[in-house]
């Protein structure tokens, strides 16, 4: 025991001229900072959570409110009827307001409903894309734009995904709260106008007129 005790204490060199110090490991300089302290503490609490696959939402050139909307949709946290019921909100009926047929969950409302599915087909036809589409919002978003079509601009294509889902949601709300009727063509038109206004406002060197731009949609999304 004495041996290992001595072994232990001779490992460290004593430097009489220096002071004993503390070193903060997370910083290269060894000095504590609240920034790295926060990272250590919060990283500790959230170690197990890895949900990074849709982080690119924040890199798209779109308004923040649209990004937050997409973030909620991808996490399935929009107040659809299914989600409201899960949170004990009284909802008169559970059916989708567009088709009056199937329960209104996000996957149905945005992607599988007979009123919205054709919108996706239509937009895929612009860029000659033919593919099966995943069921959940998250998978749908992840696949959208990673499909290989000739020269598809993946970022713009993802922006389109957000513009279209955003517009579907706006129109759905008008149906629910203002008794409006849902017209697929109007949705496409509004969504295109919305996307064009984002590009125009946020992309440098984008100065096409709307009519010009929307009459050549293949060029709008492909090289």
């Amino acid at each position: 025991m004495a041996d290992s005790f001595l072994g232990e204490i001779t490992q460290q060199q004593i430097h009489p001229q220096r002071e004993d110090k503390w070193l903060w490991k997370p910083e290269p300089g060894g000095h504590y900072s609240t920034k790295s302290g926060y990272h250590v503490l919060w990283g500790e609490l959230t170690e197990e959570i890895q949900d990074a696959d849709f982080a690119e939402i924040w890199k798209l050139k779109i308004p923040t409110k649209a990004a937050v909307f997409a973030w909620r949709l991808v996490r399935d946290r929009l107040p659809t009827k299914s989600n409201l019921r899960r949170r004990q909100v009284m909802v008169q009926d559970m059916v989708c307001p567009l088709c009056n047929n199937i329960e209104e969950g996000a996957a149905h409302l945005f992607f599988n409903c007979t009123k919205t599915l054709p919108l996706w087909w239509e937009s895929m036809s612009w860029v000659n894309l033919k593919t099966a589409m995943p069921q959940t919002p998250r998978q749908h978003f992840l696949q959208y734009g990673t499909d290989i079509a000739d020269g598809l601009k993946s970022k713009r294509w993802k922006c389109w995904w957000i513009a279209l889902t955003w517009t579907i949601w706006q129109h759905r709300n008008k149906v629910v709260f203002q008794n409006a009727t849902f017209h697929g063509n109007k949705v496409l038109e509004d969504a295109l106008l919305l996307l064009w206004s984002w590009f125009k406002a946020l992309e440098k060197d984008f100065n096409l007129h709307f009519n010009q731009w929307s009459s050549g949609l293949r060029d709008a999304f492909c090289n």
Partner: protein
Amino acid sequence: MQRRFLWGGEADSRKIAWVNWKTVCLPKAKGGLGIKDLRTFNTTLLGKWRWDLFYIQQEPWAKVLQSKYGGWRALEEGSSGSKDSAWWKDLIKTQQLQRNIPLKRETIWKVGGGDRIKFWEDLWTNTDLSLRDKFPRLYQISCHQQQTIQQLGTITNSGWE
């Protein structure tokens, strides 16, 4: 307040928080919104007291805390007297909380002259146990349980003994 800003609602009413707070506070790259968690941030700010008390010794405020309450050492060991101020006791209490442990764990000793490190109780060798915990029987018979390295060893050319 941050919650109400995010999800809506008035001072006396709440709205549904659609995503749990832990997720909201994740960095965007990890799927959150990158909002700062204030409780955690508060802990890291309080951690500055600990650090500054250790390093800034020439400043009047640090001298006062050193002589009055025992400074960083008292903070580290959580020892306070009954006459200490409420503020100091509170600070000590925050430093003993569970959620402070990572901050202590990420701080290591760099041995200099052995003037501040307690030979038996501090973690200064290359292991994750103090000498007290590693050699409890030696510690028991030592008459210098609280002493620093400097007080216990003498320096010779070959090192110290």
